[in-house]
């Protein structure tokens, strides 16, 4: 089983890298870009035989304790069989 975890800044936290990417996109002529938020992406391969519920619980714990800093970041994830 594979998990894909996405981590990004909370909406209230300024993302200066996202702002810099947005202005680069604007200078290339992509005027339709209103906002860019930059984040992190993790692909985690889990051992076979794990139930979906258990995998969900473990990924949740990993995201809370390690992958994201809950003070400034949000996360979401998906499980792929």
């Amino acid at each position: 089983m594979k998990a894909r975890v996405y981590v990004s800044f909370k909406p209230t936290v300024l993302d200066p890298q996202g702002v810099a990417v947005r202005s680069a996109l604007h200078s290339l002529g992509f005027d339709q870009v209103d906002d860019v938020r930059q984040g992190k992406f993790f692909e985690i391969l889990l051992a076979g035989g794990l139930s979906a519920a258990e995998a969900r619980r473990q990924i949740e714990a990993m995201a809370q304790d390690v992958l994201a800093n809950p003070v400034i970041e949000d996360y979401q994830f998906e499980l792929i069989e």
Partner: protein
Amino acid sequence: MKFGVVVFPGSNCDHDAWFAVQHNLGHQAEFIWHDSTRLGDADAVILPGGFSYGDYLRCGAIAKFSPVMNAVRAFAAAGGPVLGICNGFQILVEAGLLPGALVRNRGLKFICEPVQLRCETTACGFTSTYAKGQILRVPIAHGEGCYVADPRTLDELAAEDRIVFRYVENPNGSLGDIAGILNRERNVLGMMPHPERAADPLMGSTDGLGVFQSMVQSFARVASARS
């Protein structure tokens, strides 16, 4: 007094801190390797600046799982003084020993320059040799030094007199111009500027030495109260 200087893989201000304590202050300093589970007989602990674990994931995010951090947590919980400088501050917020977080500088650049700090409180064991409102010249050297916290935490820090240093001119976008904060028990200080790099006349400023002198003074006071 004996200071323990924790060395993580990627620490690079550990020797500066050691030198400030041993030579400029005339006290004892000993290195503590990150996989040690004990702090030995250290009376105070310094988490030095650098790039522990290459700043992988987030600054300080991997270091917080080092075996030594359990010992640091227990030491802090027992009232022992802990000073986190730069990366050390980042490790302390990641470990939850201090509130808030440190994110990429507002201007995206790594900034290495002397700045002016205002000492906002002398009511702790890290600044008792300064005067409240005193302006210090101390260098910063960081890419992720922008302090952020939710409004409630910021109010709490201010109300409880836990903001120790503020930048006179904000270099990195830190909320409230915050450069250094205390935990609620006032025995853990995290600060982005480097007092150990302003501890020798050769470095152009000795304004940072007061942090270490204050720690010695506070230790002597506690020791004499015990005896």
